[in-house]
């Protein structure tokens, strides 16, 4: 009797789950469909409103985008460099910072922890003005270092790594490695990092996407046309003069700029989806 009841319950729950998941999937995917449709339409067609069927201007918009005055292809390379480096530095050093707080019992540890969490509460916009003044003085305007290096100090990523470490990394593991005579730096690189893979993959995606789509800071820092990242170029397209303002090209550029993130995401998402086994290390 008991088992039957649970089975019926499982069945009902499964139905509910599928319905909710289907609705959510629709809400998540529809935007890509609309973007794609819009990228196939000419400016005139776009001004007539929305349709469900694609039009015939896909190739035309693509050619116009490549021949627009904005160096879109170059922008994509720039975005890749900035977002890729930021994601890499951010996850590596955030894990390192989290490890420092997690594994070592040093004086002022609690104070450090609190400080880092407090840093998280500083809104980016708040320090933006001071940030630009600082970069100007350091001669780092129009330089990617000013966009990439700050990601080393990412309190939110650190916080996540710390929380994850609390549930995954047991002290006995480190102890064992020390017994084997491994150095601290090596322990971190060869034992801690692999253990943290699911968390690193998750945060790498988040950081990459956040940097890929970031307009605010790069717009303040990058002035040279050949240095600009995609979001800035899209903003430029949108403020083009009225004679050239072509929403078809704008949508095309947006669709084009989403493409690489989707690829990076699909590549890394395997580690999220398949992370079940990786995370199974317990005491």
């Amino acid at each position: 009797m008991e088992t039957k009841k649970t089975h019926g319950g499982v069945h009902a729950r499964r139905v509910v789950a599928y319905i909710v998941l289907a609705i959510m999937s629709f809400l998540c995917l529809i935007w890509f469909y609309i973007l794609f449709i819009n990228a196939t339409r000419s400016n005139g067609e776009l001004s007539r409103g929305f349709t469900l069927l694609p039009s015939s201007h896909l190739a035309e918009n693509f050619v116009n985008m490549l021949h627009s005055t904005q160096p879109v292809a170059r922008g994509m390379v720039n975005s890749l460099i900035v977002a890729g480096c930021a994601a890499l530095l951010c996850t590596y050093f955030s894990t390192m910072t989290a490890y420092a707080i997690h594994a070592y019992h040093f004086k002022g540890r609690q104070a450090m922890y609190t400080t880092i969490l407090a840093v998280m509460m500083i809104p980016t916009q708040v320090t933006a003005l001071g940030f630009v003044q600082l970069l100007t003085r350091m001669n780092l305007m129009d330089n990617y270092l000013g966009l990439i290096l700050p990601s080393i100090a990412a309190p939110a990523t650190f916080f996540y790594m710390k929380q994850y470490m609390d549930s995954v990394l047991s002290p006995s593991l480190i102890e064992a490695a020390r017994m084997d005579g491994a150095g601290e730096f090596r322990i971190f690189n060869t034992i801690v990092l692999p253990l943290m893979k699911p968390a690193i993959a998750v945060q790498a995606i988040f950081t990459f996407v956040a940097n890929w789509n970031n307009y605010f800071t790069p717009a303040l820092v990058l002035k040279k046309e050949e240095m600009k990242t995609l979001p800035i170029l899209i903003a430029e397209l949108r403020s083009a003069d009225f004679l050239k303002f072509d929403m078809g090209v704008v949508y095309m550029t947006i669709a084009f700029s989403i493409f690489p993130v989707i690829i990076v995401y699909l590549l890394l998402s395997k580690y999220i989806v398949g992370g079940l086994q990786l995370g199974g290390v317990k005491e």
Partner: protein
Amino acid sequence: MANEKTAERHGSSKVVRYNRWGYIFLIPFFTIFVIFQLIPLVTTIWNSFFENYRSGLKQIGPNFIGLANYVSILENPDLWKYVSNTLIMWVIGFIPQIVLSLLMAYWFTDPSLRLKGQRFFKTVMYLPNLIMASAFSMLFFTLFSDHGPVNQMLIAAGILSQPFKFFSSTVASRVLVGFMNFIMWTGNTMILLMAGMMGIDPSLYEAAEVDGATANQIFWRITLPLLKPILLYVLITSLIGGLQMYDVPQILTNGTGDPARNTMTMIMWLNKHLYSRNYGMGGALSVLLFILTGILSLVVFKVSGNADKAKQAK
């Protein structure tokens, strides 16, 4: 907690020598933090005590005026309007976001449910986050315009007799902002929660099932408590992100915060001051925002942190 115990147990010079590495590993973070965040922050705070803005090409100030900027902001009744706008829109987005992401994460990690197509669903949920907020807002603006597809459908279905002006209605505009944030961030939260749930020892579930626990019981008694660190993370970062809400309402309302400034968030207001590069007022507003964020985060920390300790003591 566990670490402290380990350290106590050993208490030897060897451990102390190990602990030196704690400082070394913190060097990159703090170096970068001091240069790129602390210095700008201190500049911001310093600026908040001055009258300092641009009038055309002329620079007014900086003239030291003490707390005058703070007084003028705190005396402005609009401040509380913008604070509540921000919190209301955050809550509208956050509640469905946390509920659905918890549910979905739970379904995906529940072995007894054996959902098919998991990989597809998991992958799809995060996708909206890949779209630039500005592009997303553009789409919403088109969809919900007076003659847009949503109105057309509602009229065709006989629900409305004439177009509903979404962007002239306070409730509708706020719900739209909340809804957009919900769509954009649910997948993100779900991934975080899933990673947390994956970290939970499967043998705990098995044991519970053997003891005849229902799915509900397992969720409330095992999953949720063990998920607390990640939940806390989600709550805090979402709260902070919510208080800093900017791009979605900014682009959706073209920076106006309309109707009647009822969708204007604190950062949008800050942005208004930055137009004239009012470092003084902008700085003071930033500091207040910083303090507010700190207080709210502390409350969240205290509430959940205490519960955490109680559980561990048990």
